[in-house]
């Protein structure tokens, strides 16, 4: 008997251990393989209407599919299989010197599922979360190094996000989760071939171009834990790995070796006697988007069944930021005939660019969120939510060559949740609809240049972001 009990215990322990290894090993494995990954929209706009409405302060209090971003440990708190889908949109009013920066809106679908289970009395859950933008799988923008750009809002969020996590609840007060998040990025090649007429380039030139973009996925780890010492009290911690998107853009015009039979990008200049060949090569390598490693610590307190207060702080390692102004190498060769050399001058060399240190600073993001029951009837429960967080800008004053625009961000959010339960026999579970509205204020920031003859000069930047969305979840108990 004792032997059987010991055996049963060891089998259970082995299974628990196996689940733990699965939950944590995935992230451990991905730590070794995820050297380069990409930015994500959730860092800026959040994921899932309930979580966003609570200011993102849900590290200690999340169990829907948004746990795939906020804290995968929360997946194991779910008692019902949940499938959710939602739509989200963000609209920007950002300006520099009172001129609209025309940051494109971001819209897309969020969806996910949580599938709980139990093995030998140990609860576990598998989770999947997806953010799919309307317009792009991945957008690459290669801007001139000195051109001002809203570094954290213009291009960074325009990625697909997919995360798969596993969480276990070895004991009632503890949940652990981990897994891998996937993002998409691309490597682009632009090739141009044809004839370029010098005298009438717009009318008599014939040029063809070809763009080749390789879409690849990149991975980064995420691991989290939730501790619930009392039914009304919960704590959570999560670690998200660092990743950087290496953006490579190659443009080829003409053949490096004239008359190369394998070259498909031949370029000839016409308009002055016999055509003569030219060759232009641009290789730009830069970090298109970077997301720093983050650690969030949060607490959730529910003094009554009808009210919950969440607080947390996130450390964001922005000081590891890699500047988007990367290295570029430019080669231009034109075999100008001797008779035309006074008219057509080809520079001996064209200066490319070299990476400039970004000198970002770490930041701590405080968050607070609250949720309360507004209405509770037999089948219906309505909850109101509110939240706030503050992000100080990690971007230093742009006093020299770089012109990365950013400002502090004050984010206010409101939300509403409607839950229909006791729906049997129609549905053995519940239907939950959540809505959120998020307002971000980026107060004016003034950048003052050291040089009085800097081509960009001093500038002011400010903005607002209006975001909103809805999520519907169906739970099967």
């Amino acid at each position, binding site marked *: 008997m004792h032997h059987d009990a010991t055996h049963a215990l060891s089998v259970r322990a082995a299974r628990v251990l196996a689940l733990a290894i699965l939950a944590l090993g995935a992230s451990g494995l991905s730590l070794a393989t995820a050297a380069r990954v990409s930015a994500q929209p959730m860092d800026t706009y959040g994921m899932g209407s309930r979580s966003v409405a609570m200011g993102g302060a849900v590290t200690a209090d999340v169990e829907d599919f948004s746990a795939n971003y906020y804290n995968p440990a929360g997946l194991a708190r779910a008692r019902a299989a949940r499938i959710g889908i939602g739509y989200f949109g963000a609209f920007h009013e950002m300006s*520099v*010197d009172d*001129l*609209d*920066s*025309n*940051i*494109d809106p971001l*819209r*897309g*679908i969020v969806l996910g599922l949580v599938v709980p289970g139990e093995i030998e009395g140990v609860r576990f859950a598998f989770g999947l979360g997806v953010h*799919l*933008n*309307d*317009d*792009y*799988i991945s*957008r690459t*923008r290669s801007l001139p190094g000195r*051109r*001002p750009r809203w570094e954290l809002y213009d*291009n960074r969020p325009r990625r*697909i996000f*997919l995360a798969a996590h596993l969480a276990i609840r070895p004991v009632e007060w503890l949940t652990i989760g981990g897994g891998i998040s*996937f993002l*998409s990025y691309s490597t682009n090649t632009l090739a141009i071939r044809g004839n370029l007429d010098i005298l009438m380039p717009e009318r008599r030139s014939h040029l063809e171009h070809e*763009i080749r*973009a390789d*879409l*690849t*996925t990149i991975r980064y780890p995420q691991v989290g834990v939730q501790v619930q010492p009392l039914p009304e009290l919960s704590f959570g911690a999560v670690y998200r790995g660092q990743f950087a998107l290496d953006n490579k853009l190659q443009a080829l015009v003409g053949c490096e070796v004239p008359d190369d039979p394998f070259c498909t990008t031949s370029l000839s200049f016409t308009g002055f006697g016999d055509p003569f060949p030219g060759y232009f090569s641009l290789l730009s390598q830069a970090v298109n988007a970077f997301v720093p490693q983050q650690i969030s610590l949060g607490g959730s307190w529910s003094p009554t069944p009808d009210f919950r207060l969440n607080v947390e702080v996130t450390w964001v390692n922005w000081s590891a930021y890699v500047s988007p102004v990367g290295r570029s190498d430019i080669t231009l060769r034109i075999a100008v005939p001797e008779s035309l050399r006074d008219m057509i*001058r080809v*520079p001996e060399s064209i200066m490319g660019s070299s990476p400039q240190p970004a000198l970002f600073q770490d930041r701590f993001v405080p968050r607070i969120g609250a949720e309360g029951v507004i209405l509770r009837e037999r089948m219906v429960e309505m909850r109101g939510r509110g939240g706030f967080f503050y992000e100080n800008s990690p971007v230093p004053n742009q006093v020299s060559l770089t*012109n990365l625009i950013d400002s502090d961000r004050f984010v206010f959010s409101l939300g509403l949740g409607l839950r229909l339960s006791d729906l049997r026999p129609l549905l053995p579970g519940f239907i939950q609809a959540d809505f959120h509205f998020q307002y971000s204020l980026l107060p004016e920031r*003034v*950048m*003052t*240049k050291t*040089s*009085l*003859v*800097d*081509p*960009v*000069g*001093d*500038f*002011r930047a400010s903005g607002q972001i209006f975001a909103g969305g809805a999520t519907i979840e169906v739970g099967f108990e």
Partner: protein
Amino acid sequence: MTNASRRALLGLCLAASLAGSSVATMGCSTLGPKGSEPDGLPHNGTGPYRDLDADETAVRTPSGAAISIGGTTIDTAMVASDGSLFYASATVTARPMPDAGPLDDAGVALDAGVALDAGTPDAGPAVVRLPGPDWSQHEARSVHRSAPRPPTGLTYGAHSPGFEPGTEILTASQAWEGSFVTDPWALVRGDGSVLLYYAAEGGIGVARASSLDGPYETESAPVIAAHDDAVPRRPSVIDTHLLTGASHPYLMYYEESGVIRVAGSSDGVAFAPIASLTLPPMPARDDRDGAELAVGGPAAIVVTTPASRSIVRLYYESRRSNGNVLLTLAASSDGASFEAFGRPVVEERDRRFPSPAVIDERISLLYQWSPEGPGTSEGTIFVGVAPGGVRLAPEM
């Protein structure tokens, strides 16, 4: 492609990408919409200035000039704070013949800046001819004012950058002025009165008026007099009350013997020379630029940046050893020590006498003398805009 179908396709592409299937992702070659561009980006007046076209200046002959008067050569010009154009001009008396051979009066001291001595003590002087009118073929120059035109249809600015021929407001009348007056620079004070600085044979003088409409009364003596062989030219005066650390309420920049000098004044009338500006030579970009021999033609303006600091932008000529002239820029926070831009602000190598005007924090104009264009005798005034992507008239 609708958003729904695009989204479905993106989902399939993502799945294929996750599966690592390069074959499957080949079908994903769809491009998203083109990203939006900002309405405008910050700009610090460093150019390159793009010449306005005829639609923007409403001056057709020559196309895009700021002003053009048949049979008359325009010398220097500047735009006052009310949008008026002050310019010096003279009627052509005899047109130079194409086969007339080299001019032998290129180095006359009366018009400093036209020619430079690029020679060495051993080799003897070698005169470098710079682009510019031959005033020996003209009547005496006088100063004119052209009132601003309404900004009909313009997208930026309170006034049109192009002008109709103006009226004569100043001719040589004092003994020290000799036969001509030129290089006008109008400073409008807070009470509406005007100080009109100008150059003549005996140096730099000032004329006063109670308003821009005149009449302008000249002083009997120059404020900066010629001395020895040095003749001061091209005065440009700023009110320094917005600057931090300026030594005088008024600063005058002027050209003398191939350098730019600064003089100070407490009332805008009596000036005392302070020093010559230290401006490092602008390096050549290629062999067409030549080496810098001298600087001149200063024109200063006080601007307030978006960071609410006021600075002096000083545009000037960099005169080169091969006869070219490059227009460039330096800036200062106190009006005395300048930081040079080190590159031209105008692509052309034959423009002269720059004069800035500011439309707003970002957009500025630069009036320049140019030898180009049919219908002019020996050049006229063109105007450039920066940033070059800005159009001052609606797209046709």
